[in-house]
């Protein structure tokens, strides 16, 4: 999320939901921040098939920026909005254990989620706090890995038996017809969305998000939504209204 005003608005919505009794868990990435710090160090950000090429230096920067800067600034915003946040990354309490992706030769330290141990989240949620999780994790030997935030969110949702997974993006959702912005698909089931992907109706950048949603749904999460983070209060609209604010995929 690039604009500060938008971030603030989403955080306020999150705190509101927490106040009315929902137990939200926030998982974040931070691509633009990482890019800007890499450039400050004179290192050009590189991508391969949409994933960040993460060599040793990039991994250090990713960890510092996501866990140290982005995570704490979100925690701070939640605290200012009236909630109480606890910032974690995958390494804390072995929340996420990573393993290298099959594509490690080209991508470096990009990790897939091998195991989730959601134990630490239960006392945090039970005490009324909001966990904020940075998608950095370590493998069995302590080597840091950069995990895709959507993937981390999907697997944590599956581990917690979450009711809803929500992916905030900067597009309106999934369109039935790419050229018609009014053709937003409001609700679709797993077989329907797989059909759309096969029919090439789902744009390239959206496919990993759809796969993440389906993976999560297959593990028992009730619904997974891809919503437009640019719309004010999209989070509230999605959770508290029938129309929602994007595309909801049901199990």
């Amino acid at each position, binding site marked *: 999320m690039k604009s500060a005003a938008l971030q603030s608005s989403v955080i306020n919505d999150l705190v509101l939901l927490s106040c009315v009794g929902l137990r939200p868990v926030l998982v974040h990435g931070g691509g633009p921040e990482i890019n800007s710090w890499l450039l400050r160090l004179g290192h050009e950000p590189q991508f391969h098939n949409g994933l960040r090429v993460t060599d040793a230096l990039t991994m250090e920067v990713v960890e510092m920026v996501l866990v140290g800067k982005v995570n704490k600034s979100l925690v701070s915003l939640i605290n200012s909005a009236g909630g109480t946040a606890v910032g974690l990354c995958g390494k804390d309490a072995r929340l996420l254990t990573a393993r290298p992706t099959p594509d490690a030769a080209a991508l470096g330290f990009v990790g897939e989620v*091998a195991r989730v141990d959601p134990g630490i989240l239960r006392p945090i949620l039970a005490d009324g706090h909001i966990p904020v999780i940075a998608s950095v994790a370590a493998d069995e030997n302590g080597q840091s890995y950069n995990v895709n935030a959507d993937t981390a969110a999907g697997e944590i949702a599956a581990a917690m*038996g979450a009711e809803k997974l929500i992916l905030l993006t900067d597009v309106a959702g999934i369109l039935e017809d790419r050229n018609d912005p009014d053709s937003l698909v409001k609700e679709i089931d797993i077989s329907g969305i797989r059909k759309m992907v096969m029919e090439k109706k789902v744009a390239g950048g959206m496919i990993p998000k759809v796969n993440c949603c389906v993976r999560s749904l297959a593990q028992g999460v009730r619904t997974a939504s891809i919503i437009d983070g640019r719309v004010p209060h999209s989070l509230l609209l999605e959770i508290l209204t029938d129309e929602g604010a994007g595309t909801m995929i049901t199990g």
Partner: protein
Amino acid sequence: MNIPFCYLTLESVKVEYTPDAEFYKIEAIVRPWRVHHVSSGLLQMGIRGVTVSDVRGFGAQGGSTERHGGSEFSEDKFIAKVKMEIVVCKDQVEAVVEKIIEEARTGEIGDGKIFLIPVSDVIRVRTGERGEKAERMSGGRADMMSLTASID
């Protein structure tokens, strides 16, 4: 749908099972949270007798791992599943199998398997009825199918 009754009988005879029996038990191992989808789907098509049990199992898929609760499970780790057992007469088997697959499938590894087992006889405990009379449930699929046929 306006299908003449003679076509219905023809379609229901096409599948051959060995060994041949009048009734078959359909044993489906599915994901626990899909049970509700499957049982409502079955009720909709008139299957009114189902038994479920909680089981654990593993079933290797040649190197690819199954994900359960966010974690990957290697081939020797047991994962919780539910076994659904349904006994129907031979001509209903295909429809039930198709419905189970439709409702239980997610496309990810771990969706489960279905086994068909021939059953020699079905006996109703309350009345002692055997055979087709015992297997048939009032308001069930056999009644639904004869209703559609008689409307033509």
